[in-house]
């Protein structure tokens, strides 16, 4: 627990009062966030009940829940949601497998370990858009190095509706497994050595040691990584937008962008935005719950 200065102490008598300073420090930030994040959202909640189109001068008509009803009955939107779910499962699943595996491998004495870890973390600090762009170069069917390395001739990755989504997910896995790895490594290095020694004395098998000692102690951090990546994957826009433009890779964020900024169905897109928002808020709540849990340890 952090000690706190009591209001009304000697110092509070001089200069500004603690209460005034607290308000001076906190309130501008909260106002700023309300004006530039919450106010726009209220604004768009209003539009989501209308048939407003930003490209025309026609006034907005109130149509109640019709936008929501239409969206949820729309077969194509349903496909967009399902595509997003598939993408989330593949990319987060891949990141967990690769990241956790890498953490197990790296959790030992390795020459230049600090350098290796930092190098591995480079991709996740980079811009999604730019990474997507240069993976396009790597995926090129005729001269890309991926086809060359795998011995595939002229295999289409990004313009093939069957594979494109997985190709995008693979790039995401490349970028973000180190993130999972970093959190797992933090969990692994916190496991006291004597637990393993005790297990060795008891002649416990590898599997037993893994499921009874390693896994339970890594789980809190691993969960944080999984929830965070799931949320980010649901929001994915840049990567898929840059790499491909097909129906089979149209994630919900891309659909939303097209609806709002290409078809200019402002009212309807606000409604879709709210559906996505509710989903993301739900995941955020779960995320913060586990984040606070891990913090208390």
């Amino acid at each position, binding site marked *: 627990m952090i000690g706190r200065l009591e209001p009304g102490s000697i110092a509070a008598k001089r200069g500004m009062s603690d*209460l005034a300073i607290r308000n001076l*420090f906190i309130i501008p930030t909260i106002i700023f966030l309300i004006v530039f994040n919450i106010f726009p959202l209220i604004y768009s909640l209003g539009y989501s009940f209308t048939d407003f189109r930003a490209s025309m001068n026609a006034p907005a008509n109130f149509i109640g829940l019709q936008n929501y009803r239409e969206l949820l009955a729309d077969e194509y939107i349903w496909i967009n949601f399902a595509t997003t779910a598939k993408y989330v499962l593949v990319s987060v699943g891949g990141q967990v497998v690769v990241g956790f595996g890498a953490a197990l491998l790296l959790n030992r004495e390795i020459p230049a370990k600090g350098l290796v870890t930092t190098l591995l973390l480079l*991709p996740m600090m980079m811009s999604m858009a730019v990474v997507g762009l240069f993976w396009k170069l790597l995926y090129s069917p*005729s001269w890309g190095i991926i086809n060359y390395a795998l011995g595939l001739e002229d295999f289409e990755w990004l313009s093939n509706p069957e594979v494109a989504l997985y190709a995008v997910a693979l790039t995401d896995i490349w970028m973000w497994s180190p993130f999972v790895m970093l959190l797992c490594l933090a969990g692994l290095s916190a496991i006291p050595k004597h637990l393993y020694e005790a297990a*060795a004395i008891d002649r416990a098998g590898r599997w037993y040691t893994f499921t009874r000692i390693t896994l339970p102690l890594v789980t809190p951090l691993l969960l944080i990584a999984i929830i965070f990546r799931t949320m980010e994957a649901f929001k994915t826009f840049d990567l898929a937008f840059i790499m491909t433009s097909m129906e089979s890779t149209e994630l919900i964020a891309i659909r939303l962008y097209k609806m709002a900024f290409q078809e200019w169905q402002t009212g309807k897109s606000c409604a879709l935005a709210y559906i996505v928002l509710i989903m993301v808020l739900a995941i955020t709540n779960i995320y913060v719950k586990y984040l606070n849990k891990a913090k208390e340890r």
Partner: protein
Amino acid sequence: MAAVTSKGQRLWNRMLVATVFVLVIVFLAPLYWISSTAFKPRSLATTVPPTVVFEPEITPFIKLFTRRVQMRGEVDPEVYEEAEWYEKRVLDAGERFIKDADGNIESSGYWSRFLNSIIIAVTSTFLAVAMGTLTAYGFSRFRMPGENDWLFFILSTRMLPPVVVAIPMFLMYRAVGLVDTHVGLIILYTAFNLSFSVWLMKGFIDEIPTEYEEAALVDGYTRMEAFFKIVVPQTATGVAATAVFCFITAWNEYAFALMMTNSKAQTAPPYIPSQLGSGITDWTVIASGTFLFLLPVAVFTFLLRKHLLRGVTFGAIRK
């Protein structure tokens, strides 16, 4: 892991270490590829099999900053003689600069986009970190009714999908004329980074014992002075780490920049991919643009390496 390691285990261990290094090399191959393409002559960029060994040259970077056209036929030897070294490189590649009436070389859009990126990222980082540090101090040292709810509210603004915020923001910006302006993007990025900076700075400030401030207060400092003269210097590392994280986020941002700008205030991330569609694709130029853009991020990642875990968990895990 166990104290006693047999010979077999040591061999096993060595094999695992070797595996790690092989995997790291495979993992880093894409980064090597994009950096090496940035220094290749155009003819070697798209060969089958891929060219690994080549003589690096600077031509792609010259092309990156200028506007050029393909030449038909040979270059006039006189023109070639008079040309500067950088122009010769381009002429060697079979292209020539587009020049205006005064003979000045026209520059491509890259430099102005790069400059926009710097201006917007630096300003928004400064604002986010300054406001974030104050707010974090407020939350760290004083009680506040519903404190956790306010902190949750602040964090949740970070989690909002950019497209969701962008739709109403675009309408509002259009009404007040902030579309495609630096100020518009700076406000958006500041709002986006503010929550992150509050959470991260709160973690750093929580670690400073309150005794220092209490002592200062007893010595006759006011609370303001104690904050600026004791707390801020104590947490300089924290401020620096937070600033770098905010800078990288703003630098990398794509979705807002795509939707809110189109030329004047456009940043590099939406600009670089847009070069793909224009004319014949010269991958060496795209690669050099990408390379320059990624370079600062790579440098900062190395500087930040000790604080990465803290940063990616919003200051929750401190190690």
